[in-house]
């Protein structure tokens, strides 16, 4: 396999793995948030804010990996 082929392959794998991590993380976050809202509906606004913030932070970390994959796919 040439370098280019390996780079494309790893870009695809890396993107998939990154999405796996993000999906698991944000899924657990959403579960906890829904749990908390179900237990105390009056706290829904605060929980929603924390949900959005935590989701954006997790997504930020995931996008580190995506940027690396995009670099691989472009520069290859």
């Amino acid at each position, binding site marked *: 396999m040439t370098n280019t082929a390996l780079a494309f392959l790893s870009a695809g794998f890396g993107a998939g793995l990154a999405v796996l991590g993000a*999906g698991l993380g944000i899924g657990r976050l959403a579960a906890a948030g829904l749990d908390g809202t179900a237990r105390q509906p009056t706290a829904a606004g*605060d929980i929603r804010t924390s949900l959005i913030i935590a989701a954006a932070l997790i997504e930020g970390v995931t996008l580190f990996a995506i940027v690396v994959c995009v670099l691989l796919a472009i520069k290859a």
Partner: protein
Amino acid sequence: MTTLLASLLLAVATTQHTPEPATGEHGHPAVEAGAAEHAEQHGAKEHGGGHGAAHEESLSDVMLGHVSDGYVLEYPGYCHGGFSAECETDLKEVFGDSLVFGSVDMTPTKHLIMLWLASIVMLVVVMAAVAKKSIVPRGLYNFVETLVQFVRVEIAKKNIGEHDGDRFVPYLVTAFFFILFVNLFGLVPWAATATGNVAVTMALATFTFFITQYAAIRAQGLGGWLKHLTGGVSPLLWPIMIPVEILGLFTKPFALTIRLFANMIAGHIVILSLLGLIFALGSPFVAVGSVPMALAIFALEVFVAFVQAYIFTMLSSLFIGQGLVHHGGHDEGHGGAGEPGMGHAGGDHAHGSHVAGNAPGHG
């Protein structure tokens, strides 16, 4: 969004080296028809495949050309005799070499022009809002005041503290509105997202970095700030500790940079990829599924524009607050400063109990 970006990454990669003849024949008429039709219908950045110039570019080149910076401004207007949707101005031709100082090229680029335009729009909107001050706010003034109040109370005062928050509100409000307007500008047809440029987001993160260090030095004194760089270990470990701590100073602005940049770029690349599928698969019928999906991602992009502006401002205020919390002997160490929890400095527990106090069973 990351899901779609990941799944389309391979599609982009595989179309990069496909030979043109197969898609070329019915690709190009479909391209012209598709480009014209979409430019009228949806007004998003669709004229990606229909460039008159380089038919030899691959799909990914066109897509990357749309999101990256360049010297060519595109806009609808009157050029080559008649109204055209693709007038171009090459800024290098406009300025020539007048702004090239040695090896530093200061010629304005497309993203810089977008930054200026977004700043002008922001200034016009805000100044129009405050032009008619009244005791009872209404209209645009009400809207702008809601946002400023939100930044001041929910972001600045919660994270920085009651009496210090007001000092940093101007920077936080400016950052919030600026990032919001630049992000939203990227969704306008023919405009570009300047925050999709690492240089722009790095500049914004650098501002936050300097203000954070200024706040920390102001609160702890220069000696106290340097002492924090040593991390409270014995002097024997300083040669290891100080470089690590200095590097640690830069991780937070770096994360801010990449987060804003990648979020903005990812959304645009997904939209362009979905529309590029039409050209990659060569058939106009792909548009039936592709364009509604791109529209949904477009709506998500509007939401992400707001959220990313909010996140940047909120994290900036959090970092500033963390620098200030150590003054007055309130030393919690570096471990406790890691989480993005709300309500750091001493008297902020009153904010947290607003909701809890109303719930039943909370004596």
